[in-house]
């Protein structure tokens, strides 16, 4: 680690204690997740199927709840830099942590009866998810280039495995490999960029780098090719993670192939963490060079908004559609970052929260659709309003919110972003955002039309009966070594006729869809609490206007 003068004097002052001081209180959000992951992994070894199928997810939820508890406990405390300057626990980090943790809770609920944890093993599946969540917690509080990289990898590597969790399904394996290759390219690019930044400044701590950049007179960023290349490579590396165009091509493929619970987790939590670290890196570490990187990121954001929205237009698979929509939404979030003001940071974090609420409800409905009809085709939504009004309404609200219709949180989020853009002198970017929102209506409304406006004939139900979740495809696969016993049980059980309650939706799916659908409306009408919440994020980054 770098020899931070403050840390050094601190160590000297406490020299009589053997071993360094550990700030358990500040570390607790991360530590709880690590301990939880290990416990879950161990309990997953239990021989009783009941324990594995019920206790493991419950323990996972307990661990995440613990993390959420500690995060709320630490919230709005004075920012603390811990572990010799490697991590900074401030409100920006805690808000991003909370968003990721809520996404993880939803993902665990969505995976409650899914194939993926049974095939991959309950213990492994859930413990990987907890490790990934821990990686996010490290990443968003990283205050050092090394911790940044470490957090990113701790986030990513478990996700590569989780994407391939349904490893009897070709699409899942492919998604895992594809994500691994593209993700590693992104990581390698990022680490090279970090190396160059280290080379240019001689520092790894964010504060120290910012200090060096601020004290450089004259040439600045453009005068230093090493730094310039480094920052460009870092942008590319982050862009891969946050699925920012033109580095987004993996997104729809991986979203489609991965188990849907994991897709939901990736879509919301990974994006939140990536955007948070984007914010911290650019609006804190490189804030002195704002004039130099802002145009590049503004161009990137515009391209992302247009590419994502246009790409989503022709999709018939809901997961791919949400993939492209996620690309476009990442573009919206980037615009707040480009402005480089407190208002912009708050607007971005507001949109991150909004994005979480808007997407999770939609993913719950997709999980339901896959269970009853075996596919996530848009056409299979026909008659959902009659079969399961709650899910139909949740998806409708989610789509309208993503499109930015008033009365939903998506509208307020866009208002806040446009406000920060106009205020920061990026009026043209606000117009790009608005144009993107117009294009997006073309596909969000098609989903709504598929739910309500196709005749609710027997077609939807017929599809539901034909290809239930555990149908022929699973049974046809040859048993292969390493699978968990449940997967085989499930495979042999075969696909029987689905009960009526199956068509209205499993309770945990109804819970997720209902809660997040309702929150989209509640916070769309009463956005005050969310505003107060995210205002802390803007205040956490020092040195911003």
């Amino acid at each position, binding site marked *: 680690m770098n020899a931070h003068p403050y840390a050094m004097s601190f160590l000297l002052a406490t020299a009589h204690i053997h071993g360094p001081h550990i700030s358990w209180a500040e570390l607790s959000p991360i530590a709880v997740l690590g301990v939880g992951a290990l416990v879950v992994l161990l309990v997953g070894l239990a021989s009783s199927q009941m324990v594995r199928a019920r206790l493991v997810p419950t323990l996972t939820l307990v661990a995440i709840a613990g993390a959420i508890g500690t995060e709320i406990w630490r919230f709005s405390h004075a920012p603390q830099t811990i572990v010799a300057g490697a991590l900074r626990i401030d409100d920006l980090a805690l808000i991003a942590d909370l968003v990721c943790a809520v996404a993880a809770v939803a993902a665990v609920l969505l995976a409650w009866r899914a194939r993926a944890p049974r095939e991959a093993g309950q213990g492994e599946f859930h413990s990987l998810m907890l490790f990934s969540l821990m990686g996010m917690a490290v990443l968003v509080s990283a205050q050092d280039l090394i911790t940044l990289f470490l957090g990113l990898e701790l986030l990513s590597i478990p996700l590569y495995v989780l994407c391939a969790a349904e490893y009897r399904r070709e699409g899942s394996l492919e998604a895992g490999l594809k994500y691994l290759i593209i993700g590693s390219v992104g990581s390698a690019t990022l680490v090279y960029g970090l190396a160059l930044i280290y080379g240019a400044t001689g520092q790894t701590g964010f504060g120290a780098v910012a200090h060096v950049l601020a004290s450089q007179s004259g040439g600045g960023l453009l005068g230093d090719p090493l730094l310039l290349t480094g920052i460009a490579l870092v942008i590319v590396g982050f862009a891969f993670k946050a699925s920012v165009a033109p580095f987004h091509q993996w997104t729809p493929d991986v979203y489609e192939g991965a188990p849907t619970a994991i897709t939901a987790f990736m879509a919301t939590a990974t994006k939140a963490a990536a955007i948070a670290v984007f914010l911290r890196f650019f609006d804190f570490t490189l804030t002195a060079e704002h004039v130099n990187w802002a145009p590049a990121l503004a161009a990137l954001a515009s391209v992302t908004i247009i590419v994502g929205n246009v790409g989503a237009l022709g999709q018939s698979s809901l997961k791919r559609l949400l993939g492209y929509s996620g690309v476009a939404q990442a573009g919206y979030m980037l615009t707040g970052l480009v402005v480089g003001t407190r208002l912009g940071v708050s607007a971005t974090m507001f949109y991150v929260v909004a994005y979480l609420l808007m997407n999770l409800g939609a993913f719950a409905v997709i999980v339901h659709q896959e269970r009853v009809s075996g596919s996530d085709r848009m056409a299979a939504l026909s008659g959902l309003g009659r079969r399961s009004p709650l899910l139909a309404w949740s998806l409708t609200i989610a789509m309208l919110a993503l499109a930015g219709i008033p009365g939903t949180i998506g509208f307020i989020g866009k208002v806040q972003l446009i406000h920060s853009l*106009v205020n920061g002198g990026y009026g043209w970017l606000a117009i790009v955002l608005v144009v993107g929102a117009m294009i997006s*209506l073309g596909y969000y409304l098609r989903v709504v039309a598929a739910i309500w406006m196709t005749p609710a004939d027997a077609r939807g139900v017929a599809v539901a009966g034909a290809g239930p979740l555990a149908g022929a495809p699973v049974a046809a696969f040859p048993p292969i070594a390493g699978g968990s016993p449940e997967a085989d049980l499930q495979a042999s059980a075969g696909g029987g006729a689905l009960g009526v309650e199956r068509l209205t939706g499993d309770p945990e799916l109804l819970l997720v869809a209902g809660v997040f659908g309702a929150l989209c409306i509640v916070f769309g009408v009463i956005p005050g609490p969310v505003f107060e919440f995210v205002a802390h994020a803007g205040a956490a980054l020092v040195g911003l206007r």
Partner: protein
Amino acid sequence: MIFAHASSAPFSLSILIWLPLALALVCAALPARVTGRALAALSLLPLALAVTFVANFNSSYPFPQFVTDHSWIPSLGIHYALAMNGLNVSLVLLTTVLFTVSLAWSALRDIERPRLYYFWLGLAESAVLGAFLAQDLILFVAFFDLMLIPFYFLVGSWGSGERVRATIKMVIYTAVGSFLMLAAAIATGVIAAGDHHTALNFTFGALEHLPVSRTDGEWLFLGFAVAFLVKMPVVPFHGWLADAYKSMPIPAVAVFSGVVAKVASYGFLQIVLPLFPQASHHFQVLMLIIALVSILWATAMAFTTRDVRLVIAYSSVAQMGFILLGIFSLQAPGAQGALLQMLNHGLVTAAAFFIVAAVAARSGGSERMDDMGGIAFRAPLLATLFLIVTLANLAMPGSSNFIGEFMILLGTFQSHLAIALIASLGVVGAAFYGLRLFIGAMHNRVGGRVQSFEIKRSEAIAIVPLCLIILVLAFYPQFGLSRSQASVNLAIAPATTSAFRGSQSAAALLPTFASLDGPAGWWAYPLLAGVSHSLPGKPRRIYTYTTASSGSGSGQ
């Protein structure tokens, strides 16, 4: 002070706005077969409430009345501000009337999935009332966009023909405008606050104190104008109109064309002219030409189409063209005529759509003019009602529409003579296509599948009340005019050319405005150089502003 203050009403405007939605939710809990009738009966409540407000409305007071103002999103300076003024008072009443009538029409028919259907109608009424009453720019945009959602579902789920395509086309067309308006609205607040170093505030009253610079104002004007022009619609922004009107269910199309389209023209008067006076003046000719093209093109289309519903649809494009013409004549008579015409046209077009449905029911369900004819012989009462509506639509002297169009043309004559002369052709054209429609449907040879019968209860419940109101207005057009006059003068004053850009006429107006007082002092523009210090307070500022803008032509 010669103007009395606004009298207070026993209720808050919030109740008026949200009551329809609440009633729809309550009725959705009832058994499906009684939902419609219960809601139709209960929708008399918002109507009665609106009547109470109109009765308590002080016509001589030009400023917002019955004000509700709460901070909604403090960090963005967005207020939940509602108020009634002369611009929206008659439109609010019109909204409640048309929705009640449409609900009654629906209640006497079998509707699939009735609970959802009535929920969407209830939401639509709440959103339209909200858009009319909102006194905050962002709140207005929110209601304006929200209005679209119920109609998206009403067309998509209960429409006919290519309904899904039609509804998506409609939403995308209108959303293009709406989102641009959202950006423009936010920019207006941010730029105004930045120019004048005040806190962010989006209420109309506050923004009228904070004029944006001329160049900014022009871009912002265009953002708002596109949204309103698409929604009205006028040529060339009318691409969605034919498909959407063709497949919309009759009660929905009646309220859509009757009031939803009016929100847009109301927006010009309430928002664009007071907030962007210089830009309005700058783009005056452009807007007048758009209005003129709409009138001529829509008249030609109405004259050639064989589809009865489209005749009414194109006729309403022509009427919206007239309304736009009146507003951008930037003359008091023109703007007052436009506001009166919004009321008249809302009643007439809604009645016409209901009659089209009644006529179509007699000609085997077809809305083609070729399949109609000879219906009047067995249905004299229906024919009479149709004749009343037709005569009102073609602005027969004696009708309220005649007064509206006359005032619009009068205003336009005062500002642009040539445009007014050409626009008069539209009045003549209206007579042609209106009578052609009436004769084609009611007289002529009896159509092949026509089975004529007298008007039924389920049809009369919508058509008769509307025709009665049209007749009453014909005798008493002052109902609309007297209430709007003061507010309209105030709204167009900053943009008016002849009265306000010349120092002579501004001086003439001083006695009038010197006595004005109220919460929305639009004239409170920042002081400029060369102030005539002899004048007291506000008159001095009027004088300063008007002389400055007429002198340099650039204002602030």
